[in-house]
């Protein structure tokens, strides 16, 4: 069967490419369309992967893995949610699985790190930025992810609910708990 692929159309501003056409072309094996779709979403995907992992090398690997998975499952994308939400759900899953494996197989904590974790609470005026990072990273995975997605990456609760596969109400309560724990961890800072 010959698959007829329509040429890519541009909108009035000649900037936004029709995403569903691109998706159809990628499914048909068009690598230029793949690159176009990648260019539209990769910066945000990399940013999300970096926010969640805090490591440029890991973020690169997670981004690659997410796109490879997304491209291979494009035919399953039904358009019920925005493509970006569907794609970001894959990113979150990829990062979560990797973090879970890190925990399962025990990430090595160096002596310096251990010392810094223990002593941070005792410091008179620890650096606020560092303390925020430590406090966010010490949240449980579900709270941490929700906080990063909402307060840092700016997703709505509805989008986060789709990405994490949980009800919207769960996202809201997770965010509330995450903020509360973060605030508690930063209580040492008076001003």
């Amino acid at each position: 069967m010959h698959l007829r692929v329509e040429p890519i159309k541009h909108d009035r501003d000649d900037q936004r490419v029709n995403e569903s056409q691109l998706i159809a072309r990628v499914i048909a094996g068009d690598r230029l369309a793949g690159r176009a779709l990648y260019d539209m979403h990769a910066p945000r995907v990399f940013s999300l992967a970096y926010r969640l992992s805090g490591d440029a090398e890991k973020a690169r690997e997670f981004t690659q893995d997410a796109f490879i998975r997304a491209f291979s499952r494009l035919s399953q994308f039904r358009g019920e949610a925005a493509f970006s939400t569907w794609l970001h759900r894959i990113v979150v899953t990829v990062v979560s699985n990797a973090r879970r494996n890190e925990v399962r197989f025990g990430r090595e904590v160096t002596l310096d790190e251990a010392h810094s974790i223990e002593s941070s609470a005792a410091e008179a005026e620890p650096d606020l930025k560092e303390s925020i990072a430590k406090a966010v990273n010490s949240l449980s995975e579900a709270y941490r992810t929700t906080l990063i997605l909402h307060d840092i990456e700016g997703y709505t609760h509805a989008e986060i609910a789709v990405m994490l596969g949980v009800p919207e109400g769960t996202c809201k309560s997770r965010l509330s708990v995450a903020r509360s724990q973060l605030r508690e961890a930063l209580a040492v800072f008076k001003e």
Partner: protein
Amino acid sequence: MDDDRFKEVIHDLPGSFNAPPPAPLDEMWRVIEDAHFNAPQAQRTSPGFLVNTPWLAAATLLIGIGIGASIPRARTLSKPQPPLAVTAASPDTSAVADAYRDQTNHYLGQAAALLISLPATDASRKADSSFANKASDLLVTTRLLIDSPAASQDVKLRSLLEDLELVLVQIARLRNERSRGDLDLIHQAVEQGDVLSRLNSAVATTQSSE
């Protein structure tokens, strides 16, 4: 820390927590392009988590033992020893083919039973978990059958196995918290791929060849 100060901290989080460096777009694309567009078709559709897992190796061993056990012993043990040159030149391929067909037939029957018994719209978490566990078990066999030399010679069976693998992955995920549409998506995938009727037809074919 008072409310205003904390609000300020939250407001500043995008700039203060893991601010991302510029994305290495071209470098990442090269890897993605190689993996997706330059890879053979079979690799494009296989879920990554099925590869390189220790339990897959264990399952390979089990299936191998299963196939070995189902090869009629009389053909290999009770026959008088033929001359060495003849033994080396003529392995008992029909016994291996029989064993493969038996395994495939058994697997297809189990997969069909799972898909038929999948609830239409709603089910309890316990039922979800039971379906998910069954799907996980079948996934291992699916991947082994797809990778077997016999499947590479049977295009129709291979295509069915690949479609089944995607459906089974979705069912296996029911173990986790699921959204209300997940079952619908699974049923859609089954219907759109005409999976059940192809399964029935494959079962009929393998049974008639026995």
